[in-house]
């Protein structure tokens, strides 16, 4: 979380130094929406003007290439003056009628927050009037305070607080609290945990909903997502793997810990060491050895490292994205001998600089929190970065700098298949490593006056 100035004088002295040009962060309700899509039968509802829902839909559709339906309370001028309670109730009614959801997630926009809507009170009155209906989870997401990363975690926290209440016998399941990963990542994490004979409750799990299949009919609410019953049972799991760095205070894993499930705080499993570190507690809590296929994948990854190590050695890479992914990728680049010269995030908390602060001096040249692509571009110039690793929003910076951009993370708006990229596990690392080596080789081929056709 942001540490905000405590006094009025401190507020006034807390001046911005510059304009934000080409942002590297989205707004908090976007994070809330993605998280909501990971719950089975959930419809996200944004309390505010119509545009927020539509902009976020467009942004997410362009990345996932899936329908992403987000309802809005569609506040207009009148409601802005007189209050939006009636609109929120109507939105809930209309969503219930059209979608028959199992759950609604109501996130606030800047508009609702600024006019001081008492959303909790409004929802309480709505529940009284409409009788027993779907559960409704409320999360406060003003974007002048938080970005998409915080909005994502705040929603997970709100869901856990509201729904993860079941006590009872231990179940042979593991909870996973990931940051914003790709659907393929979530699927792979489930597969890895399944390899130890455990079930996985991934919150949120949008693996199917945001990387869906084609069916005969249009599904108002696509299949997939964590059922409310599984969220309820989370306290009974053997362990909670918390991969987040920026969880809203308190972390969702702390809430689960208080309710009986012990947490395991880990970095994202990217690379040999980080993935090994994930398998170790899995083996311990499950009492099972890691499955052979994971061993084979590990072997293939090491084999690829041997084949490609020279091409990445000493290469100066600039990274940007959400704090968890950037931290994990920085450690991985060091593992393979490349140099993460710039590590940047648009997130406004200090999670990235804190996490990377623990590295030996000189591992990273520049760490930027609360960065925009303009400052990242400048940092790349200062550090002579040779490759940009991040979302497709780095395209223009990479083009201006004359270096290749390897697209990973979120968003990827100018390619297809973003949801199918795997970043985690030995398998994801292998994909990343191949892509990194090949991107560097392609750049070298392009620069060469004569080209080459063998390595």
């Amino acid at each position, binding site marked *: 979380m942001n540490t905000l100035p405590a006094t009025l004088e401190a507020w006034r002295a807390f*001046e*911005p130094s510059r304009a*934000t040009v080409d942002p590297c*962060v989205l707004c908090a309700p976007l994070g809330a929406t993605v998280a909501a899509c990971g719950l089975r039968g959930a419809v996200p509802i944004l309390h505010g003007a119509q545009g927020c829902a*539509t902009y976020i839909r467009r942004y997410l559709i*362009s990345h996932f290439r899936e329908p992403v339906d987000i309802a809005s*309370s569609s506040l207009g001028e009148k409601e802005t003056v007189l209050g939006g309670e009636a609109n929120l109730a109507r939105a809930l009614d209309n969503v219930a009628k059209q979608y028959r959801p199992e759950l609604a997630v109501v996130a606030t926009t800047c508009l609702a927050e600024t006019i001081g809507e008492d959303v909790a009170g409004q929802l309480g009155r709505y529940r009284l009037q409409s009788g027993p209906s779907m559960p409704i989870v409320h999360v406060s997401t003003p974007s002048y305070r938080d970005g998409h990363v915080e909005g994502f975690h705040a929603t997970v926290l709100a869901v856990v607080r509201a729904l993860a209440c079941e006590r009872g016998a231990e179940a042979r399941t593991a909870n996973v609290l990931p940051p914003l990963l790709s659907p393929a990542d979530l699927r792979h994490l489930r597969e890895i945990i399944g390899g130890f004979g455990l079930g996985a409750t991934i919150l949120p799990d949008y693996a199917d909903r945001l990387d869906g299949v084609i069916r005969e009919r249009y599904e108002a609410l696509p299949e997939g997502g964590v059922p409310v019953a599984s969220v309820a049972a989370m306290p009974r799991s053997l362990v909670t793997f918390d991969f987040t760095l920026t969880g809203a205070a308190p972390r969702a894993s702390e809430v689960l810990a208080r309710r009986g499930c012990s947490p395991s705080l880990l970095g994202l499993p990217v690379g040999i060491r980080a993935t090994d570190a994930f398998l170790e507690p899995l083996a311990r809590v499950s009492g099972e050895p890691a499955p052979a296929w994971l061993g084979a994948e590990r072997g293939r990854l090491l084999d690829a490292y041997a084949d490609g190590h020279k091409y990445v050695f000493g290469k100066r890479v600039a990274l940007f994205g959400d704090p968890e992914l950037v931290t994990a990728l920085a450690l991985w680049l060091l593992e393979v001998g490349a140099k993460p010269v710039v590590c940047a995030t648009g997130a406004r908390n200090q999670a990235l600089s804190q996490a990377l602060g623990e590295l030996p001096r000189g591992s990273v040249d520049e760490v930027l929190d609360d960065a925009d692509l303009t400052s990242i571009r400048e940092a790349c110039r200062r550090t002579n970065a040779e490759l940009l690793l991040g979302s497709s929003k780095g395209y*223009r910076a990479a083009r201006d700098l004359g270096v290749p951009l390897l697209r990973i993370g979120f968003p990827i708006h100018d390619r297809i298949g973003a949801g199918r990229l795997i970043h985690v596990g030995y398998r994801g690392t292998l994909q990343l490593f191949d892509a990194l080596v090949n991107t560097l080789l392609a750049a070298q081929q392009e620069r060469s006056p004569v080209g080459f056709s063998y390595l």
Partner: protein
Amino acid sequence: MAFEVLNDRKGQVVRTRPNQVVAFSCDKPSAAGSVSQRACTFCGSRVVLYPIADALHLVHGPVGCAAYTWDIRGALSSGPELHRLSCSTDLREKDVVFGGEPRLEATLRQLVEQHHPRAAFVYATCVTGLIGDDIGAVCRRVEADTGVPILPVQAEGFRGTKRDGYDAATRALLALIGRGDTTSITPNSINLLGDFNVAGESWIIRRYFQQMGIEVVSVLTGDGRVDEISRAHGARLNLVQCAGSMTPLARAMEERYGIPFKQVSFFGVEDTSEALYATAEFMQDARVLTRTRELVAAEAGRVLPELRAVKETLRGKRAGLYVGGAFKAVSLVRALRQLGVSVVLAGTQTGTEEEYRALQAVCDDATIIVDDANPLELAAFLIEQNVDLFIGGVKERPIAYKLGIGFCDHNHERKVPLAGFEGALAFAREVQSTATSPVWDLMPRRSAPCPVFSKEAP
């Protein structure tokens, strides 16, 4: 579950009947919870002004409003590219509590100094409207100090619909128009209103007028330049292409400067020819008319053979469309008809009563007409009408694809110019590339054969 249109929206869906206009409800706020495809008032202003390439566009609000409108349109520029920056004051909690004017002023001064724009547009957002920032005062102050025209765009997101945002953009444009020197403008001159140079469309149209001997004083706002817009009041005629966004500006210019306007479309061979002839006739210049005839004959002659060949492959195909305004929809119905494709579903985000009357008139019987639709309605109508091809924007694309239906982008992001004669051919190829693709034969909706798979254990 059987699909039913929400009670709140029942008046906004009709089926056309022979020789009559069916009563229809439109031009109203979106129903809460409907999942409208519309954006907000801010968006309306932003999309209209966005293509002005030598102006700075600063969004005064939390970072999201700027992030979502970064590089949002494929509006090309032949020179400066300031419009492709996403500039935000990135308001934080402190500013919301104490007021955002100091941050706006500091940001604006910094960006003007850095980029030397010919003008700057400062967009209000929900938050800055609510906290009462006096954007106008800040703009006047910075304009006085820097000499750069700074124009506030008061289109707070909650103010109304996207259409109200067009009006806010109109006010900002009117503040620029009239500032420039018009003495060198020739008598046969026009402005082109409502072309945004998506994929270079303004360039195509400009070339036609150049060949006809007609001077294009300014395009509003495709490949737009502040100086050109400042002298737009010197043109003899305004051609309005995107009627939804630009009719208010055309009306205001008629009132203020006595410039008449004509509504035209450069979509399809038929509409393009009509637009060029109408302009030539207006000029009452025999030489212009002759050149126009030559141009249309040559250009149409060049594309018609391939258009006919494409049409052969599209015979009997059925299309649905969902676009911004209803005049665009009318143009699309006509252009598709020329390709042998019949439109059986036509909807718009912001059509007006007048526009919908025109749309009903041009559509075949039993066409579904829908205002401010949502994804579930569109999906249901696509199936009900057994559509082969859907035309819309990014938010409509996955609806079509999930159903195994072809899709053409007719919105901001496309990379293919669809204007003029060459655009008509590009459009035909686009339609063909998706409506006749063999991949659809594999989809479940077409009952393609498929092995039996076991159901995975939960």
